[in-house]
């Protein structure tokens, strides 16, 4: 199967949500030791939901497209909703199947977002069960 579908290439060429956030609540760095790719995520939270998200970093088309799509998806999501995101969600966004090695590329951003959530400022009480 050709994993380089037009949508993936489009996100790779013109990734969404790139850049930095000066006022980020959380800055999370991720590293893929297999290929040396680095990813930095910037998030702000309002009412326990992701208000803004940006990312910086270099990577292959799969990792860039996955990060671009995933950062689109999590905007406005609650911490709990984000925690529940899985590998399958990322593959569904990408619309392809991947072998074990390329899966690591695809999942770097999910891993980063999960780590970021753990560090996010404590939620206000009304959102705990959201």
């Amino acid at each position, binding site marked *: 199967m*050709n*994993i*380089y579908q037009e949508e993936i*290439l489009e996100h*790779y060429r013109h990734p969404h949500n790139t850049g930095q956030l000066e006022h980020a609540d959380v800055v999370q760095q991720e590293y893929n030791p*297999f*290929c*040396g*790719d*680095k990813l930095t995520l910037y998030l702000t939270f309002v009412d326990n939901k992701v208000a803004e998200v940006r990312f910086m970093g*270099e*990577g*292959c*088309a*799969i*990792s860039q497209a996955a990060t671009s799509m995933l950062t689109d998806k999590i905007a406005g999501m609650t911490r709990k909703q984000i925690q529940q995101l899985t590998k399958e969600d990322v593959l569904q966004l990408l619309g392809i199947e991947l072998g074990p090695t*390329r899966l690591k*590329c695809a999942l770097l951003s999910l891993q980063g977002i999960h780590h970021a959530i753990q560090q996010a400022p404590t939620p206000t009480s009304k959102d705990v069960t959201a």
Partner: protein
Amino acid sequence: MERILTKKIQQDFPLLQRGVAYLDNASTTQKPQAVLDAMNAYYTECCANVHRGIYAISEDASARFEAVRDQVQQFIGAGHREEIIFTSGTTASLNMIARMLGATCSAGDEIILTEMEHHANLIPWQIVARERGLKLQFLRAREDGEIYAEDLQALCTPRTKIFALTHLSNASGYRTPLAELTRLAHEQHLLVVVDAAQSVPHIPINVAELDIDFLTFSAHKMCGPTGVGVLYGKKALLERLEPAFGGGHMIAHVTLEGSTWAELPMKLEPGTPNIAGIIGFGAALTYLSQIGMQAIEQHIHQLHTDALKKLTALPGIRILGPKDHSTITGILSFAVNGIHPHDIASVLDNEGVAVRAGHHCAQPLMTAWGVSATTRASFYFYNTEEDVNRFIAAIQKTQQLFLP
């Protein structure tokens, strides 16, 4: 161009029948049927431990096993058979020699490595350096990407004891000026440890002529099975070193309080070795010798030259490593403008071309090059011009896909 070796040779390799253009030979090579048969024959005809049984099948196994030691001795031009120590691979050999030599050093002694070492020839030295308070110094490549003997001289101090270096860089294919470096290191009374994991499979090597003190390589990069490697050491040196690992088979006399060691090579081969693997390695050496290392070197050189010419004719290609491409053999490490190595390798895979993308276990070198990863094509004697052409066509296809 007339080819030294022809496509017919591929018939000896079951996996190559699948039609893949296998260009990841620096990682591991394919195995000819003869190697698989030799290992199978051990298991079906003489499966017994070596050097223990007084019964016929054990003696048969021991004879097949020890014959490989003679073959290795011949293959690398060692003076004595007991200078050949079997290990599980280059990594194990380098860890072992680092431990054994490290034990002879005192705090403050210095070890020189190059900046282009595989992690297997870096981390073991970092570990002993930390344990024993030794200092690591690094011989760096100059602007042109090459290493110079004068720079080694400049790094030497009265405390320098060891110089460990690669003969052929797996990340770039650069062939270090080993003879000159060894001569200079010996003038400075250093012991020379050579990581020959990439060179022994590609180039005829004579350790006695080169006057190398210790040399390491892996069977699996030269048509042999995985899990087998060699540590060559000059007999007088190996005799002086204390073993790094103890166990059965390596002792002369044992009491509860202490033990004495067996003679070489047993002293450095504790436990049951990879008998089937070593016997398979023997078959690989026979196979390579029949083709001839000179022919192998020339064929790889032809393919490499051809691939280099065709690759550099494409737009946006940067060859990593020394600027003078005549110092590179067998390996092409490159960057394609605007395309990540992973994506290149994925598209190539789709086209039936196997290459490696990554840091090639040489992260400090990637840092020096200012990249996080490269794409690497590496050739062996069974590769053909057709493999090269498929590789080039697949790179063009990748460029079309990513750079419209």
